[in-house]
């Protein structure tokens, strides 16, 4: 925002100009100790003639006298008011990488605001900062703010913002920007300014704004919070002008007010659509429920159990959140959809892929589509994401026709749906429904045994099997109030298949946008929230993910965030290993390995990265690489003790590919 008021007299612009003049003067003045006149030595060269006129009285005083104390900025700083606004919303942390474009609000947060609510957390990369906020929300259910340098900082943050967008997670991103082209400092600050910094994230934020006054900021911030926290959740962005932050509150008669935040109620399904969905479900022979990000809270899990048991319907939990207890007999694998006559999809990110298969192995390398369900299967969708579709990024996936479509929040619609189903179940269907439950119990027990048999394969292998990795880990944490905060890479889904996940915080889902680099920061952010709740945080940390921005390890140590990171170090970008192999096969060419295990460009070896040393250098307790499965348990046990003492710990484990 342009500076409208030149007061106070010594403003930032004049101050900087003064510094520049003084600096230039210093550069051409030879140093003279204690103001003494240089002595003329015998045989010395005659004094050189001055290249400029002697300084006049004013210049001499400016060069040699004690600088006059600069006048302080009068009045209340605008950024202090901004802190007042932020404090009304109970925001606990502000993970950020420091930057000049938000120096005023930074100063206000730590001095005027006392560095509490929010507390500034020092981050080494903006992607880490926003990733931490992402993970934090999934445990705490509350958003954080993250300050970013205009342009360059926000550019770093973009991948994490996109992940939050795809994962329906609220984060309030505030970008510093100096809009006033006529007065902002030239050079670096101008490289870091833009007309519209939010443009870069507009396609994957719910809303953004550029407030031009302090009252405008108050409204924008409360509005941003409200929008981001109304399901479907999502990130929002505010561009914060440097001038607006730095200048004092103007005494122009306007009394600044902070709007009161009142949460919006989540959108619920239309009554008629709920009744129709209930009719289909109640009369189905084999209804299946598929949930992705359905349970926003623990109550969502409870409601889904209630609906599933009422119908004795199998539940396929796609794992966007912990939707359904893995120990429940109605928990079913993805293949269960093939026998369904009614499929209820709850907050699915890709309904098409639930009922269709895509095999990346067709003629000329083009994939082949096939159906996974019977032709007359009825499809019901409750999905708030339909209210938040934008054009550019394709996270809305392929179009899938459904029979009942409710653009509504699933968790909020479930109570009405449960009641409607209860009313719609015909008396003559109750025995059949009960029988369905008995069959489900048997199928669940059999599936459990098959899973254990699969886990036993390569149990003693080195590199260590991913099943062994996760079960050695679980053995050391099972007595604690544990929370698996992230599982980056791919460990064949063993935690979800073998750990008794029952509570909402046992599993947080994945990145959303599949942007590699989410695991490390999100696990630190979630561990921060768990720390405050007294829970034990564990992550399965992949190698490729950690190398995107490993500086978040330092942030965890710096701020004493306890987290056990057990590494799934398969020494490669394994998803890409397989893609290049696939294309080589399609083209009938031998994949060139270049001395590594995977095709050139996909391995992270030669040299192998010593992640334990990396972590140790940033203040973590760490050990590795562990290659012997029989030694793994003891090392994890040591690490658990460290984490229980309040510090982060990392165990570097060489693993099978998946």
């Amino acid at each position, binding site marked *: 925002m342009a500076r409208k008021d030149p007061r106070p007299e010594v403003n930032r612009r004049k101050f900087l100009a003064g510094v520049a003049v003084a600096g230039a003067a210093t550069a051409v003045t030879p140093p003279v100790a204690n103001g003494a006149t240089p002595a003329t030595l015998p045989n010395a060269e005659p004094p050189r003639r001055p290249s400029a006129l002697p300084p006049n009285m004013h210049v001499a005083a400016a060069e040699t006298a004690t600088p006059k104390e600069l006048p302080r900025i009068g009045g209340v700083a605008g950024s202090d008011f901004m802190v007042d606004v932020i404090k009304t919303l109970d925001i606990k942390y502000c993970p950020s990488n420091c930057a000049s474009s938000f120096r005023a609000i930074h100063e206000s947060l730590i001095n005027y605001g006392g560095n509490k609510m929010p507390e500034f957390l020092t981050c080494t990369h903006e992607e880490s900062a926003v990733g931490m906020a992402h993970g934090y929300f999934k445990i705490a259910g509350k958003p954080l703010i993250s300050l970013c340098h205009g342009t360059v900082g926000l550019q770093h943050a973009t991948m994490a913002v996109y992940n939050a967008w795809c994962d329906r997670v609220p984060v309030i991103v505030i970008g510093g920007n100096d809009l006033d082209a006529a007065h902002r400092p030239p050079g670096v600050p101008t490289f870091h300014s833009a007309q519209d910094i939010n443009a870069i994230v507009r396609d994957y934020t719910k809303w953004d704004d550029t407030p031009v006054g302090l009252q405008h900021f108050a409204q924008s911030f409360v509005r941003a919070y409200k929008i981001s926290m109304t399901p479907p959740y999502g990130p929002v962005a505010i561009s914060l002008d440097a001038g607006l932050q730095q200048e004092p509150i103007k005494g122009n008669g306007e009394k600044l007010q902070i709007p009161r935040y009142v949460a919006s109620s989540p959108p619920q399904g239309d009554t008629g659509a709920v009744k129709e969905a209930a009719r289909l479900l109640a009369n189905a022979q084999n209804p299946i429920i598929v949930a992705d990000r359905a349970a926003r809270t623990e109550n969502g899990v409870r409601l889904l159990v209630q609906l599933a048991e009422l119908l004795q319907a199998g539940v396929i939990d796609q794992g966007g959140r912990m939707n359904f207890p893995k120990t429940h007999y109605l928990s079913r694998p993805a293949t269960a959809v093939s026998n369904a006559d009614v499929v209820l999809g709850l907050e699915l990110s890709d309904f098409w892929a639930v009922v269709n298969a895509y095999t990346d*192995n067709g003629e000329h390398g083009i994939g082949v589509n096939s159906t996974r369900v019977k032709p007359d299967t009825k499809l019901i969708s409750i999905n708030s994401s339909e209210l938040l579709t934008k054009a550019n990024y394709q996270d809305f996936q392929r179009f899938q026709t459904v029979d009942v479509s409710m653009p509504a929040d699933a968790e909020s619609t479930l109570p009405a749906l449960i009641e409607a189903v209860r009313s719609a179940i015909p008396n003559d269907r109750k025995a059949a429904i009960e029988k369905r439950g008995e069959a489900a119990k048997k199928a669940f027990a059999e599936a459990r045994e098959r899973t*254990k048999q*699969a886990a036993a*394969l390569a*149990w003693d292998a080195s590199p260590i099997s991913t099943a062994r990795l996760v079960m050695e880990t679980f053995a050391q944490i099972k007595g604690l109030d544990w929370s698996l905060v992230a599982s980056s890479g791919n460990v064949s889904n063993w935690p979800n298949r073998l750990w008794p996940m029952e509570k909402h915080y046992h599993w947080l889902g994945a990145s959303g946008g599949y942007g590699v680099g989410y695991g490390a920061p999100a696990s630190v952010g979630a561990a921060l929230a768990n720390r405050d709740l007294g829970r034990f945080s564990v992550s399965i940390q992949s190698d490729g993910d950690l190398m995107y921005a490993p500086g978040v390890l330092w942030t965890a140590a710096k701020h004493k965030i306890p987290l056990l990171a057990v590494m799934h170090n398969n020494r490669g970008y394994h998803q890409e290993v397989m893609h290049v*192999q696939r294309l*080589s096969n399609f083209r009938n060419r031998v994949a060139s*390995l270049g001395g590594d295990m*995977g095709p050139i460009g996909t391995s992270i070896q030669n040299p192998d990265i010593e992640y334990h040393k990396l972590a140790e250098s940033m203040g973590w307790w760490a050990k590795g690489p562990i290659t012997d499965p029989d030694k793994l348990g003891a090392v994890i046990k040591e690490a658990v003790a460290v984490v229980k003492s309040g510090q982060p710990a990392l165990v570097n484990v060489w693993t099978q590919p998946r």
Partner: protein
Amino acid sequence: MRFVSVRGLAALAAGLVLGCGGALAASAEKGKIAFVQHGCWQCHGFQGQGGVTGPKLAPEPLPLETFTAFVRTSNRTMPPYMEAILSNEDLADIHAYLETLPKAPDPKSIPLLNQ
């Protein structure tokens, strides 16, 4: 969707194996190396144990004929490996390697799987 039935695979395999012109004695040792060089480990793991990206290959691999036919003609998730990139000899060695892999322990005997 093109699916090849197991019976169809067996018939095709018979032809493929006959067409190999008589197999040399397969080497499990060479097969272990070929298993890595040709990327089999990528989806199936270094011991052919499988995972979410590929089914288990060992222990007790498919008969060589069926195995060969599938590798050559797969229209499932695995792309086919033609002879130009994976020779019949290497394929037989890989199969020999898979045959050497021991049976997995009974999951009931593993305390960590019964916590």
